[in-house]
Structures are given as C-alpha cells and as structure tokens.
C-alpha cells in the first residue's frame, strides 16, 4: 500500500521536498516506528527528524499521538509544532 507523505515548515526544508509516495515496510506499525524508519532513509531525513519527540504527525489530516498505529492512513503528514494564530 502506497502512502503519501507530506512535510511542512522546517521538516519540509530539511528533507528537501514537500511530499512523496512511499511503500512502508511491514515493521512500521506505529507513528514512532515511522519516524524511526524515516531517519534511516538518508542524511536529510536524519537531520529533519533527529529530535523525533518534537515532530507532530497527522494521519489523514487528524493529529495522531506517536504511539498510535498508522493503520490504513493514506496521507501522513510530518511537521513541527504549530505556530499559527
């Protein structure tokens, strides 16, 4: 199952792209697993995600805790803490 990964703000800048399609390995079950996996995908991912605990994740446009399973989410967004308003 292909997932659409979307990046925002400095996560986007460090990874160097705003989105991509990826097939994730079966070992990636939770949001934490996803963050750990992506850190192995190159220096730019490592630079973007090294402080994984600050990274916020949305599954199909809803905020998700790092412990949550990614399930069948087709659109997974990674971004820094929000600073709107």
């Amino acid at each position, binding site marked *: 199952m292909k997932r659409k990964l979307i990046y925002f*703000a400095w996560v986007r800048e460090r990874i160097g792209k705003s989105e991509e399609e990826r097939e994730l390995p079966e070992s990636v079950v939770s949001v934490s697993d996803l963050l750990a996996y992506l850190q192995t995908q190159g220096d730019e991912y490592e630079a973007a995600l090294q402080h994984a605990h600050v990274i916020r994740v949305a599954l199909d446009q809803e905020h998700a805790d790092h412990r949550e399973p990614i399930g069948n989410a087709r659109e997974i967004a990674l971004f*820094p803490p929000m600073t709107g308003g």
Partner: protein
Amino acid sequence: MAVTPTIRVQADDFDVAAEIEAVAAGRTDIGAVVTFTGLCRDENGRLSALELEHYPGMAEAEIGRIANEAIARFGLSGLTAIHRCGKIAPGGNIVLVVAASSHRQAAFDGANFLMDYLKTSAPFWKKEHAASGQTGDWVAARDADDEARLRWQKVGGES
C-alpha cells in the same frame, strides 16, 4: 437550530465589519459579539514580514473541529474564523475570530478558547523575514501557548 461555523484560509485580507455583519445581521437574539484580530508585529523593527505556511485541507478541518467544540461548549449563536496564509507585512492582519452569543461571557470565552486551540493545534507555521532582507528562522512554538490551552481543561473538566 444547529450553528455552523464559517471557516476560511485565504491569502486575501479580511474585513472585520463585514464578518461581524455576516454573523449578526438580521438577528435580534445576539447580545454580544467578540472579535479577535491577530496582527503581524515587526518586533521592534527586526522583521519585514511573516510568512504563513499551512496544511491545506487539514487547516480548515482542524479549525472546524475546534469551532464546533466552542459552539457546543459555550452556546454560541455564531462563529467565524479566518486565517490568512502567505506573506504578511507588519501591521497586517493574520487571523480573525468572531464569536456571537446572547451573553457576553460566552462570546469572550468562545473567542478566547478558539484562539488558544487554534494556536496549538491548527496546522500553520510562521517563518520570519528579517528587515535586513534575509529569510529568518521559523517561529518556535511557545510553552505559554500550550499552558493557555490547558486552562480550558482545568476549568471545564473536558478536553
């Protein structure tokens, strides 16, 4: 009657008077309208602009979720939230909330609650553009904003 919030993310500026009018015109049951306008500051001349990035789709959906919670929790008669995106110069508008209710405290609380949640959970990010012409840093999230949000859980006993 169910109250449906008006939610928009737009590059264009907004007109506070027109948005109040849209919420309150023709109604005789509204006793209080509170508006909150967030503006771009130059931080004592340090900044030439803020650039607002957002997550299209989720931004509107998330503000909508917060807005519906505010309507239910405070018994609002009308609620509008508009967040601008793109580059905004000092003095320019960033965000507008209009909360209407029959009573004043509900209108104040509704607008205040919406802003606290919007700041910490709506997917927007601010990047600074320095007066020197350089692109600056992304604005860091403030602990004070998380604390401001938490007070609504203490007071009401709900999330």
